[in-house]
């Protein structure tokens, strides 16, 4: 058993760093528990009481059987040689077993139904809530961290709601029942055996908690290991390009060793658990034999009672162990539910007034009046912007990264509310308009086109589910996307993925154009993609744009000279302010910031 054990070198382990969750042990919080359990309320008249009744029947049978077997069957029938009584008892016991069988069947069925329904409701509630939160919520969090709450945190409550709560009831009854029965049989023997109860409670709570903590360390190490594995696979081309395989292996060996060591420590503690339990039971049995046998000797108890005692003694551990488990589940549930409630307590920042009106047939006249906006308190993204975009115009927003172009677009869709000032469409303040009807009028084509997994048809229809497939194909044709789609093996029914390789960047862009065209919005916001698209796609996109912009107010965050030049109005932004405005001709003649931006681009393309 003296194998060379791995050890960690300090330096190798610092090559990469990954975020680590903290080990949390939340104190018990009644208010939070009550809030959590309020999700059981809808089932208080059916599933909850029904499964409780089944649990009670089951528990009662389990309590009675040892008594029947020990005291009645053994003492009165067998030792007294009463064959008739034996037959009667066997019939009774069989009956009880059958009852327990039926009760068990329904118990498992209903308890799981209850638990799964609660989990379903909770997850639905959380998802619906998150879905309606504002952009700011999503800005502040990574997609992964939101996902973990909706999926894993909720799942970690599953066991608590399925088995935990109801088992709690069963176990308490079982424990009390056993003690009552034992006391009636023989108070002194009961007291003697009770010695082991505190030890059992200790093992079930304190030792187990200790063990659980070391498993948490293991999990942390493991997630670090997995994070690195994931990253190293994704970055493998970089690693091989820079021939860093050896260096990475040294790092991995370090993480792997840490993982190994945490396992070993956890295992050292964990392996104590079973022996301790068994040993405690053995002490109880020894006390029973010693004291019980002498009680039989002076005839204070019968053999049957002694046997019953032995059976009941074996029944102590299970409920105590499970109580410890439920306690642990509750503690873990605390941590999860806290994270879940944190999301549920989050309010949408952009909220809809009760008196909000529906706007349906707008012209598309947009006006900003003295609009100020800050993403966070220390930096203003917009400083007193006033502008007007007339219905049907194409407006280009030009400026450096961070000048406020995207912010203006976001305010038009009301993804955020201005800190001060107002944004209006057709003279109506956006705050008075229902969000849904507003966004129906606005189409947004983002720089990073998002493709949902599903068919291309589904992706185009995402813009307007009421549209027919014919209309969707028509839209694709209008933006020139039909060509490549029809060349795909399954045409419009080709399955695509979020990051799949089926489509090129340009093709994704064309699909999102088709999506926007199908939605047929009055206002179109276009964050022009700059990703290098091969020249033929680029030409298609140029043509598609012409189709797309017709008869709409278009706000374009522009990079392409061609779109900028054709715009009716150009706003040049700098640090949240409009510094120049006018059309291309005017601005070029003005020879200001716009002029130098265009010139820089031109220089790059021509001179050296």
């Amino acid at each position, binding site marked *: 058993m003296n*194998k060379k054990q791995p050890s960690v070198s300090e330096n190798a382990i610092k090559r990469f760093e990954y975020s680590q969750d903290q080990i949390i042990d939340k104190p018990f919080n009644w208010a939070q528990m009550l809030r959590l359990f309020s999700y059981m309320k809808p089932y208080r008249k059916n599933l909850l009481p029904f499964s409780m009744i089944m649990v009670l029947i089951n528990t009662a049978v389990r309590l009675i059987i040892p008594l029947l077997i020990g005291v009645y069957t053994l003492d009165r029938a067998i030792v007294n040689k009463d064959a008739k009584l034996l037959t009667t008892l066997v019939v009774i016991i069989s009956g009880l077993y059958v009852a327990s069988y039926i009760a068990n069947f329904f118990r*498992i069925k209903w308890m799981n139904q209850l638990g799964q329904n609660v989990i379903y409701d909770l997850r639905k509630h959380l998802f619906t809530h998150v879905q309606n939160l504002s952009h700011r919520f999503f800005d502040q969090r990574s997609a992964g961290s939101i996902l973990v709450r909706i999926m894993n945190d909720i799942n970690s409550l599953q066991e608590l709601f399925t088995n935990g709560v109801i088992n709690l009831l069963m176990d308490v009854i079982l424990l009390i029942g056993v003690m009552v029965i034992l006391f009636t049989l023989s108070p002194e023997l009961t007291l003697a055996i009770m010695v082991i109860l505190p030890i059992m409670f200790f093992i079930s709570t304190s030792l187990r908690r200790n063990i659980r903590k070391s498993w948490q360390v293991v999990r942390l190490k493991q997630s670090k290991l997995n994070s690195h594995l994931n990253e190293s696979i994704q970055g493998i*081309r970089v690693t091989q390009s820079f021939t860093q395989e050896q260096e990475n292996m040294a790092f991995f060996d370090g993480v792997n060793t840490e993982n190994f060591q945490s396992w070993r420590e956890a295992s050292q503690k964990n392996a104590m658990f079973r022996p301790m339990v068994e040993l405690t039971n053995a002490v109880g049995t020894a006390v029973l034999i010693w004291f019980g046998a002498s009680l039989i000797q002076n005839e204070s108890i019968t053999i049957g009672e002694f046997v019953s005692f032995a059976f009941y003694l074996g029944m102590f551990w299970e409920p105590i162990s499970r109580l410890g488990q439920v306690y642990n589940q509750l503690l873990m549930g605390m941590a999860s539910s806290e994270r879940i409630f944190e999301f549920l307590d989050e309010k949408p920042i952009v909220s809809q007034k009760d008196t909000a009106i529906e706007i349906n047939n707008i012209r598309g006249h947009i006006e900003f009046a003295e609009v100020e906006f800050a993403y966070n308190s220390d930096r203003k993204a917009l400083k007193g912007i006033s502008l007007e975009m007339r219905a049907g115009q194409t407006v280009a927003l030009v400026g450096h990264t961070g000048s406020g172009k995207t912010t203006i677009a976001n305010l038009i*869709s009301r993804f955020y509310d201005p800190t001060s000032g107002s944004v209006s469409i057709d003279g109506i303040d956006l705050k008075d308009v229902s969000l849904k009807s507003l966004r129906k009028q606005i189409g947004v084509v*983002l720089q990073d086109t998002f493709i949902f997994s599903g068919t291309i048809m589904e992706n185009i229809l995402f813009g307007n589910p009421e549209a027919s497939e014919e209309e969707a194909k028509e839209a694709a044709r209008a933006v020139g996307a039909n060509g490549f789609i029809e060349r795909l093996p399954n045409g419009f029914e080709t399955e695509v993925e979020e990051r799949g390789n089926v489509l090129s960047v340009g093709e994704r862009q064309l699909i999102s154009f088709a999506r926007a065209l199908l939605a047929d919005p009055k206002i179109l916001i276009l964050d022009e993609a700059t990703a290098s698209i091969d020249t033929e796609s680029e030409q298609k996109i140029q043509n598609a744009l012409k189709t797309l912009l017709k008869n709409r107010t278009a706000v374009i965050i522009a990079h392409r000279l061609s779109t900028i030049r054709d715009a009716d109005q150009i706003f040049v932004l700098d640090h949240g302010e409009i510094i120049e405005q006018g059309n291309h001709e005017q601005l070029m003649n003005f020879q200001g910031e716009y002029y130098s931006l265009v010139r820089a*681009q031109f220089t790059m393309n021509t001179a050296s």
Partner: protein
Amino acid sequence: MEVFKKLKEFYWPYKSYFLWSMSFLLLITGITVIYPIILQITIDDIVLGGRYEWIPIVSLGFVGVMVIKGLGTYIHQYTGDLFGITSVYKLRNRLYEKLQYLPFRYYDNAKTGDLMSRLTADVEGFRFFLSFGFSELIRFIVLIGITFGVMFYYSVPLTVVTLITLPFLAVVVYKFDRAVHPAFRGIRKSFGKLNTKVQENISGINTVKSLSREDFEIGKFNHSNGDYKDKYIFTSNIWAKYFPLMELLGNISVVLLLSYGGYLVIQEELKPGELVAFYSLVWYIMWPIMNLGFVINLFSQSKASGERLLEILEAEGEIEENEGQLMVDRLLGRVEFKNVTFKYTEDDSEALYDVSFVAEPGKKIGLLGATGSGKTTITQLVTRFYDVIEGEVLIDGEKVNNYALKSLRSNIGFVLQESFLFSSSIKANISYGRPEATMEEIIDAAKRAQAHDFIMELPDGYDTMLGERGMGLSGGQKQRIAIARAICVNPSILILDDATSAVDMETEYKIQQALHEVMKGRTTFIIAHRISSLKHADEILVLDRGKIVERGVHEQLVNQNGLYQRVYDIQYQDQKQIMQSHIG
């Protein structure tokens, strides 16, 4: 068993753990049946036989035996765990090493998610089996065997009558197992789907919100959410159907025991204590059989896991296997392709067909062509990420296959279209290819990549952490760090694979300027869609479906009436019009 034989090298060195674990397992399983025997002795000999003087010996002896069992259990479990985790430690290191060296060809077809599930779930399955599964199987067999022995010793007819339910139990267990595993797979699959739905929704939340399709998304989610619930309830119904039934069969045995055993005691053919002992012993047989399905399933799962792991371990690492030995400190950077033909896989059409060219040291080669025309392939053959099928790739007159990979690649700097940065500090990312680089060298590289200024504006400067816990950088910033990373190794050959595509015009302009400086004195391959990035190249190769269709310098190509000129016209006609009147 073939699978376990092949994986032997990972666990066999630690066989002593296993042997210890097994010996103690035999010991403690033997001790398990002592409890009913003690009970029997107490009743039959002490109480009924009146040998009350035995009490202290029996009680203390029992505790003593249980102490031994406790120690034995501890050692059994701990050495069993050690056996699993040391084997898996070794296995993980080997898997990782393998992954580091697998060629690009392998990763072209591999999915990260799939590899990850092998590296996590399958490795864990293998460990669990080593630590727990195998010994559990042995324990069951030993326990059932010993228990039978004891029961037969007490009474053969009673054993037979009591265990008459056993075949029925076996059938139920078998049926349960057949039903429950597919159901569990259903749950996992449904959960995976739900997970994908939510993930996609959150990643695409901007699209959802701007098209105000929240309700639609909620509907879709509820569908998956409901499916998950249904799958779960379906599974628990299987549970509800079979589990109480198994218990009932066990209980029927108890009833049989009581009736026939009670009758035997009344007939004085059996002692009361033996009857009580039987009551415990019955469950020593019933429980293992109820769990047998679980253990057998564990076995088949770990076999499947082992197979999936072997697929990685046995994947062909063709490039490493014939690695050359030639070590060179510094290459000059003369790259020559002689009639190179290449296919990614057997069935593919040629990615490159009969390509020949020479890049003299310090020259710039521009590569233009549509997606899939073979531009990237050329650069990947220079770095020997793949081996050619026909023809030769020569660097400084020597075949690339003759160089040691490390020697070859450390002379080449690669900037990819999507710059991948690691979860580490900016400093460590820049020096990724040369961990021993000094701070001055790192800063110098960053300056030349036009990255120094924005790095200094970050709160922690060069120590700023990137990746999941770190700063979110813009595409242009990431790209400049990737360029700095390539410069930091001071390569003789620089490859820019569409390096400026993911950034806006203004950043592209900055990067172009940075690159201008960087390319000096290095043989550079530039892959680009924009003429502006290529026009100053010493030679431009225009590729179409793996063939070089045009070559020359910008001034020649632009009048050749070919692909190059067409691309040029599209990109420039606009600008010419716009500019003519203003900038002259």
